C-alpha cells in the first residue's frame, strides 16, 4: 500500500516537473511585456510630445467605397505596440507612432524625402520673405480631398486658425514659434507670417502640421471627440478602411486621385505582433516589414532580408540634480563623466549595438555634431583627482568629506533596459569610491520625482536629436525630460540665438558653440545612442528619413516609400 502511494506520488511529481519545464520553454513563444529592452525599437518615445492624449474613440470608420474585386497589392507592417488611436489629427495618441498612422491619411505643406530634404507636398513651391518674416506657399492645384472636394488656400488658412483655437497635440503652434497671421493671395497661394524669427519653421510646422478640410472641420466644436468617418477625410495617399482599437490594427487603401498618382501599394495593413515574434513572422512571409532587435540583425540579413538602421536621434542620459550639493559643482559633474566608461557601457549593456554618448548631446553622425569638444574619455584617476581637489578623501576605498561619506542615490526604471545601465553606472562609480544607492522605480513615479527635483542621479532617455531646436527643450525647457539648467548666461543666449538664426551656416556655428559650452558645464551626461533597426523583404524600398519623419519621428514608415512597389 505504502509503495503504491509512493509510486503514484513520484509519478505525479515527475509529471509536474516536466509540465513546469515544458511551460517554461513553451512560454518563449508567448508575447512578453513591452517593457523589455527590445520594446524600444518601435515604442521609442519622441520628445516634445505632451502626455499621450489617450482619448478613446469607439467608432470604427469605414470609407464608403468597396475594395476592387481583383487581388490588390497588399503590404503588411508588423508593430509590437499596436493601438495608437484613431488616425485623425486630434485623436491619434500624441507620439510618433500615432502621427505616422495619421500621416498616411493627411498631408502637410512640405514633406521630407529619403535624403531628408524638404520636397513639395501640398505646396509646390515656397519662399521665405526675410523683410516680412513670412513664408509664401504656392499650392498644388490638382489636390482633392478623399470626398472629392477641391483643396485650396482657404483650407490652409482655416487650418491655421482652427489649430490656434484647438492646439493639435503633436504640433506646436502656440508661443514664440507660432504663426501670426495668414493671408490668402489667390486660390492656390498663401502667405504665412511668423510671430518671431523661427529657424526650424519648415521642419516643425510646415512639415508637421497636417491640413484639415474646412468644409468638414468648420462644424467641429470638440475635435478630440470627432471620430466619425468624416474625421479621416484627408488629402493623403491612403484612406482608412478599418481601425480596431482592441486589436491595434489599421487597414488603409490607396486613394486613386492622389496628387502624386495612385500609390503602388494598394492596401496597407498594420498589425500588432510581439517584438519577439516579428522575425518569425517575416520569415514565414505573413508580414513584409517590422522592427527587429539589434541582436538578430545579422541573422535577418543572412536570411535575405533588407535591414535599415534609424539615424541616431535618441539618447539615454544621466540626469543630474544640479541644484543640490555636491552635484551643483561643475567639477563634480565632470568627475562623474570621467568615471563612467561610456564605450564600455555600450559594449556591455547594449552588446555593442549603439554609439557612446557625446558630452555635447548631439550624436556624432548628425550634421550638427561638433567634433572639437571635451569628451571626458574614461579616466578614473582624473575623476579621483577632481574629487580630491574638492576636499574629498579616500577612506577604506570610499570618498569622505568632513566625516560624511559621499553617497548618491541613482534612480532607474525597468523600461528601455535601463536597469542594466543603472547597475553598470553603479559599479563604475563605486569602483572610484562614490557609494551609489540604486533604486528602480516605475516610470511615472520616476518622472514625478525628477520633476520635483527629488533625486540625485537618474537614468533617463529622450529622442528628437535630429533638429537642434530640441536643445532648447531639453536644456532650458521645462518638464522632466529637460535638464532645466538656466545658470549659464552664455548657454541661454546661444540657445535663443540658434533658434532665431535663419542662415543655416551661421546656425550650425551656434549649435556647435552650444555643444562646447554644454560639454563644459555638463547639466546632464549623454550616455549612449542605441541602434534601432527594421527588417523588410525588399518589395517596397523602405527607408529611414534622415532627420526623422515630420518633426523628427525615428520610424521608417515614410508614406512616400509606398508610392513604388516591386510587384508592379
Amino acid at each position, binding site marked *: 500500500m505504502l509503495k503504491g502511494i509512493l509510486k503514484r506520488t513520484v509519478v505525479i511529481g515527475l509529471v509536474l516537473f516536466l509540465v513546469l519545464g515544458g511551460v517554461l520553454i513553451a*512560454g518563449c513563444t508567448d508575447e512578453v511585456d513591452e*517593457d523589455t529592452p527590445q520594446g524600444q525599437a518601435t515604442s521609442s518615445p519622441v520628445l516634445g510630445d505632451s502626455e499621450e492624449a489617450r482619448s478613446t474613440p469607439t467608432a470604427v470608420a469605414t470609407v464608403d467605397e468597396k475594395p476592387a474585386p481583383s487581388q490588390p497589392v497588399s503590404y503588411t507592417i508588423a508593430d509590437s505596440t499596436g493601438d495608437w488611436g484613431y488616425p485623425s489629427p486630434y485623436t491619434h495618441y500624441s507620439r510618433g507612432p500615432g502621427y505616422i498612422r495619421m500621416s498616411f491619411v493627411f498631408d502637410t505643406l512640405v514633406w521630407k524625402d529619403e535624403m531628408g530634404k524638404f520636397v513639395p507636398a501640398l505646396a509646390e513651391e515656397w519662399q521665405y520673405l526675410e523683410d516680412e518674416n513670412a513664408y509664401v506657399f504656392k499650392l498644388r492645384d490638382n489636390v482633392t480631398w478623399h470626398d472629392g472636394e477641391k483643396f485650396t488656400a482657404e483650407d490652409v488658412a482655416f487650418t491655421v486658425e482652427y489649430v490656434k483655437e484647438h492646439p493639435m497635440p503633436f504640433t506646436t503652434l502656440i508661443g514664440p514659434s507660432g504663426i501670426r497671421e495668414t493671408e490668402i493671395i489667390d486660390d492656390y497661394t498663401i502667405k504665412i507670417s511668423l510671430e518671431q524669427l523661427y529657424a526650424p519653421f519648415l521642419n516643425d510646422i510646415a512639415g508637421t502640421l497636417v491640413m484639415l478640410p474646412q468644409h468638414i472641420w468648420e462644424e467641429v466644436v470638440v475635435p478630440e471627440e470627432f471620430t466619425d468617418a468624416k474625421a479621416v477625410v484627408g488629402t493623403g495617399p491612403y484612406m482608412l478602411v478599418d481601425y480596431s482599437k482592441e486589436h491595434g490594427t489599421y487597414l488603409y487603401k490607396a486613394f486613386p486621385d492622389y496628387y502624386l498618382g495612385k500609390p503602388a501599394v494598394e492596401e496597407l495593413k498594420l498589425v500588432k505582433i510581439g517584438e519577439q515574434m516579428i522575425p518569425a513572422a517575416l520569415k514565414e512571409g505573413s508580414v513584409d516589414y517590422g522592427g527587429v532587435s539589434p541582436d538578430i540583425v545579422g541573422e535577418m540579413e543572412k536570411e535575405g532580408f533588407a535591414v535599415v538602421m534609424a539615424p541616431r536621434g535618441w539618447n539615454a542620459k544621466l540626469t543630474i540634480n544640479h541644484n543640490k550639493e555636491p552635484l551643483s559643482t561643475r567639477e563634480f559633474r565632470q568627475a562623474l563623466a570621467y568615471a563612467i566608461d561610456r564605450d564600455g557601457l555600450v559594449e*556591455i*549593456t547594449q552588446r555593442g549595438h549603439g554609439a557612446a554618448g557625446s558630452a555635447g548631446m548631439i550624436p556624432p553622425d548628425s550634421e550638427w555634431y561638433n567634433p572639437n569638444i571635451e569628451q571626458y574619455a574614461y579616466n578614473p584617476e582624473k575623476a579621483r583627482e577632481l574629487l580630491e581637489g574638492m576636499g574629498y578623501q579616500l577612506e577604506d576605498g570610499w570618498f569622505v568629506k568632513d566625516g560624511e561619506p559621499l553617497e548618491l542615490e541613482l534612480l*532607474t526604471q*525597468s523600461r528601455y533596459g535601463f*536597469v542594466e545601465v543603472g*547597475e553598470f553606472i553603479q*559599479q563604475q562609480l563605486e569602483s572610484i569610491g562614490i557609494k551609489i544607492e540604486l533604486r*528602480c522605480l516605475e516610470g511615472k513615479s520616476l518622472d514625478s520625482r525628477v520633476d520635483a527635483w527629488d533625486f540625485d542621479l537618474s537614468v533617463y532617455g529622450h529622442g528628437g536629436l535630429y533638429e537642434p531646436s530640441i536643445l532648447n527643450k531639453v536644456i532650458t525647457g521645462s518638464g522632466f525630460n529637460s535638464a532645466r539648467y538656466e545658470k549659464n548666461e552664455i548657454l541661454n543666449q546661444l540657445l535663443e540665438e540658434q533658434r532665431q538664426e535663419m542662415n543655416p551656416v551661421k546656425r550650425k556655428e551656434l549649435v556647435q558653440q552650444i555643444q562646447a559650452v554644454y560639454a563644459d558645464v555638463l547639466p546632464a551626461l549623454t550616455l549612449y545612442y542605441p541602434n534601432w533597426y527594421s527588417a523588410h523583404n525588399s518589395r517596397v524600398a523602405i527607408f529611414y528619413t534622415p532627420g526623422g519623419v515630420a518633426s523628427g519621428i525615428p520610424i521608417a514608415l515614410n508614406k512616400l516609400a509606398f508610392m513604388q512597389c516591386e510587384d508592379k
Partner: protein
Amino acid sequence: MHISPKRELKRSSLGRVGIVLIVLVLILAIFAPLLVRYEPSGQTASAFESPSLEHWLGTNHVGQDIWSQLAYGARTSLLVGFSVAVFSVLLSALIGASAALVGDRYDRIVMRIVDALIVIPVVIVLVLLAAYIKPGIGYIIVILSLLGWQFGARVVRAQTLVLKEEMHVAAAKSFGASNFYLIFRHIIPDLGPILLVQFVYAARRAIFMEAGLAFLGIADPSIISWGMMMHDALGFCYLDVWRWCLIPPGVALSLTVLSITFIGHAFEPVLDPRLRGEAGA
C-alpha cells in the same frame, strides 16, 4: 498530541528526498560567496556565452555569470520564503487562536475577515500593489505575509477549538489563566505540528509568488532572483542562446518548490491523522 513531525518525515521517503533537496538549496544559498567565482551583478562584455569551464552555466545578456546569479538567487528565494512563512504563521497562530479563545463577536468578525481574504485573489492584489511601488525584498515579505495568513488562521482556529476542551487547558483556565497565557503556554506548543505544516505551505507559496512577481517584471529588478533571471531570458527568446539563461533558474525554482511540496506531503498525516493508518499499514 502524539504526532511527531520528525517521525512522519522519517517514514516518508518522499519527505526524505525533499529534505535532501532543500538542504542542497540551503547550502547553495548560505555558501554562495564561496561557491562562485564572479560577482552576480558584475557585468562583462562576454554576453550570451554557452556553458564552459570559465562560466559553468554560461552568461546572460549583460555578461553576468549565470551560476553566480543562480546561487545568489537562492538566497533571495529562501529569505523570502522563510521570512514570509515565519510572519504569516505567527499571524495565523495569534489570530486563529485568539478567535477561538475569545469567541463571540470577535470570533465572528475575524472569521469574516478571513473569509474575505480567502475570496480576494491574492495574485491580483499583489500585482496591483507591486506595479505601483516596485517592491524591494522587505516590501515583498511584508505584503506576502499580510496576504498569506488567512488559510492558516482557519486551521489554527479549528484546532484551538478542539484543544480548548482538552483537560489541561480547561484546568489552566479554571485556575484563572488569561487568554494570552493560554495561547503562549498551552495552545501554541500543542499546535506545533500544525503550525509546522502551515509554515511549509506558506514558504512554498512565498517562494513561488516572489519568483512570479519578478518574472512579471513588477518587483524591483535590481534584486537577483530566479524569476527575474527567467524574465530576462525570455526577452531574448528569438535568439538560440536563451535556453542557457532560462533553464537553470527554471529548474532551480521547480526543484525548490517540489522539495517543499514533498516535505509538506510527508507532513500531511499531521493535519489529517486518518492518512496515517493507511500509510503505516
